[in-house]
């Protein structure tokens, strides 16, 4: 059996090695992230059978939990790690040709470290360790948002940094309270001891931690940074931030709320929060004329939908939510990547400037269309099974409040369809100027085709993923088996 700690250690070692590689050969550095993520992907695939049997618990340094730090590689963690390596691999292939100017070596290092931080967050079983890896994720994304060094990038990076730093401060205060109350930092240990203290004392730490993580995962009142940051970053980074970073934040929220605290009284509150985030995201997206801002607001909406699905806490809805999450990573990545080259070609981010793009860049436009259809949830693509599972699972609960919320979900889908259709109309049914056909570079096309194939394959054979996802959802919801497998 391979050791899952290599998922973190090898990319870190490679990242530390990049300056040495750089002094040997400048061309080689661009391929370091590709190599590291390929390695991670292969490792994840090799781990699947073992993890489906039993979650793997790795004690780092040989100290048993709660005394040492442990990694918990369950189906959910492995799903996220695999998703990160797959999406990261595709985007790193895309950015081989997309990133040409500026400090390229530093871009690739930061990119790799961002994904390593994300992997660390999803695998760790220790609260403070989660904070540390979260900081790696956040700091590298602050720097990457400002990568081009233009006015918008710097400004949005500042906004992001201030809000993110306050958020991580709140998270650290929450961790301090948790340590003061329980005397331990191991998540399984806290989950076991949670019944021994009064629930009212847990309220403030939980609010602080959820607020801290909520800044990164863009839950409603804390998402002011997101549209700016996602729209002014380089497109490859927008794809990663939308597809990976906020999902990882959501994972951390879910892990803390479900597994560590597990207080079922407040789940409905999170469902409301999710619906609020969904509606606000979709409405703001509808009002945008800038395509990247539109996609960024749409990410807020999708996060709200996934939060709603997770907060209902039945096996069906959580499976649907995770399916929607996978779909969002792929399709939002595809949307940002294709939009990146369309913006590059037309020189403007306004939707009106994309008129007639369907003739000038047919493949890129096709990729955009596939991503949009999949995100809306049209049947042949990967978005459909996820939304179907969420809606049917929520209706199965049979409560009046939840039925109303489901109605709002459907309404938001309609809004989403409308604004995506507007872009597609501009792409195919409006005449633009300049008819010369010029395709995106080969690496970018490869990345987009790979994502399209993944989306269609998941839409056609949802069963392929759904089985794995249902075991992942039981990993999230079944607190006792988590505790049992960590504290043997």
């Amino acid at each position, binding site marked *: 059996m391979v050791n899952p700690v290599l998922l973190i250690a090898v990319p870190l070692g490679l990242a530390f090695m990049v300056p040495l590689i750089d002094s040997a050969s400048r061309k080689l550095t661009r391929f370091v992230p590709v190599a590291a993520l390929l390695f991670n992907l292969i490792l994840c695939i090799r781990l699947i059978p073992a993890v489906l049997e039993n979650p793997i618990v790795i004690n780092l340094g040989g100290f048993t939990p709660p005394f040492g*730090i442990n990694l918990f590689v369950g189906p959910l963690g492995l799903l996220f790690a695999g998703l990160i390596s797959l999406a990261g691999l595709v985007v790193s292939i895309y950015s081989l040709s997309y990133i040409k100017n*500026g400090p390229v070596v*530093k871009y690739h*290092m*930061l990119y790799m470290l961002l994904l390593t931080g994300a992997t660390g967050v999803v695998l760790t079983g220790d609260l403070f*360790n989660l904070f540390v890896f979260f900081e790696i994720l956040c700091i590298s994304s602050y720097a990457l948002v400002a990568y081009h*060094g233009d006015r918008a990038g710097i400004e949005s990076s500042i906004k992001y940094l201030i809000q993110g730093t306050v958020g991580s401060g709140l998270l650290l205060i929450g961790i301090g309270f948790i340590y003061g109350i329980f005397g331990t930092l191991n998540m399984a240990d806290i989950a076991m001891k949670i019944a021994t203290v009064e629930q009212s004392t847990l309220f403030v730490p939980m609010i602080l931690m959820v607020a801290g993580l909520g800044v990164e995962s863009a839950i409603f009142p804390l998402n002011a940074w997101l549209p700016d940051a996602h729209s002014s970053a380089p497109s490859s980074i927008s794809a990663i931030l939308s597809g990976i970073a906020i999902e990882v934040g959501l994972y951390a929220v879910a892990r803390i709320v479900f597994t560590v605290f597990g207080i079922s009284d407040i789940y409905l509150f999170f469902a409301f929060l999710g619906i609020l985030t969904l509606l606000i995201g979709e409405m703001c997206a509808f009002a945008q004329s800038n395509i990247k801002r539109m996609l960024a607001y749409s990410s807020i909406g999708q996060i709200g939908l996934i939060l709603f699905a997770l907060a209902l806490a039945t096996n069906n809805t959580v499976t649907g939510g995770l399916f929607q999450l996978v779909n969002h990573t792929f399709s939002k990545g595809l949307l940002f990547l294709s939009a990146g080259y369309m913006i590059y070609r037309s020189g403007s981010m306004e939707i009106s400037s994309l008129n007639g793009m369907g003739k000038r860049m047919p493949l890129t436009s096709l990729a955009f269309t596939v991503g949009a259809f999949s995100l809306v949830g049209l049947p042949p693509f990967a978005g459909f099974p996820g939304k179907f599972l969420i809606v049917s699972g929520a209706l199965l609960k049979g409560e009046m409040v939840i039925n109303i919320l489901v109605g709002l979900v459907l309404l938001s889908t309609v809004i989403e369809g409308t604004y995506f259709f507007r872009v597609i109309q501009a792409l195919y049914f409006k005449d633009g100027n300049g008819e010369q056909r010029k395709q995106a570079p080969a690496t970018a096309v490869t990345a987009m085709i790979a994502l399209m194939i993944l989306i269609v394959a998941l839409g056609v054979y949802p069963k392929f993923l759904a089985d794995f996802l249902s075991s992942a959802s039981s990993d999230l919801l079944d607190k006792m088996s988590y505790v049992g497998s960590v504290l043997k």
Partner: protein
Amino acid sequence: MKSVFSLILLVVLGAGVVFTLSSIPFGSTSSDVGEYYIDSGRADTGATNIVTSVVVGYRAFDTLGEVTVLFVAAIGLGAILAAGRENEEKKKAEWEPASLVLYTGCRFLFPLILLFGAYVFIHGHLTPGGGFQGGAVIASAFLMVYLGCRKKRISRTWARNTESISGLVFVVTGLTGLAVGGHYFLSNFLPEGTLNTLFSAGIIPIIYIAIGLKVGSELTGVIDDLIEESE
């Protein structure tokens, strides 16, 4: 309006905090984990400074993450300062040279402070201090050189290579532990030696020296990047 709103927010936060703090009395609770570390930290890791044995022994993975955070910040700072620099007009900032007293003093103190920094991180497992503090002291020594005589600069390639080699030493030590030390990443595979001597505590001094060099060269690089910005 905004300040009133933020005051209300702070008052609510403060009330919640006071409520929760009442269940954490000051200075009387002790955690099981902490007691375990104090009781068996010396036997487990061989370091007399229990904080060190927690930082580089029990929670070494955190430390790896933390070194990475600093690394990320140093690279990010370099990227931000470098981005778009080429298409800006160069402006020569005038600056006052340091006085002779400061120049001589800095030249005299530089090796002493460097030595002191090295002492701090080499003795990390015996006395207070360790990689971060020692690294910060070393970076301060270089900062003092920049303050005293600005023309003297350390070579960037040298600093970068120190940084990446010491980072690699950390990761490779961990992987060696994975290979030979009973299949645990970062496990202590070297003999622990006698307590309270310099050559004890297995891999802890090695890791602390690596951290010290890495933190020192990274912070020096940060200061160097910032100072270079105006030239």
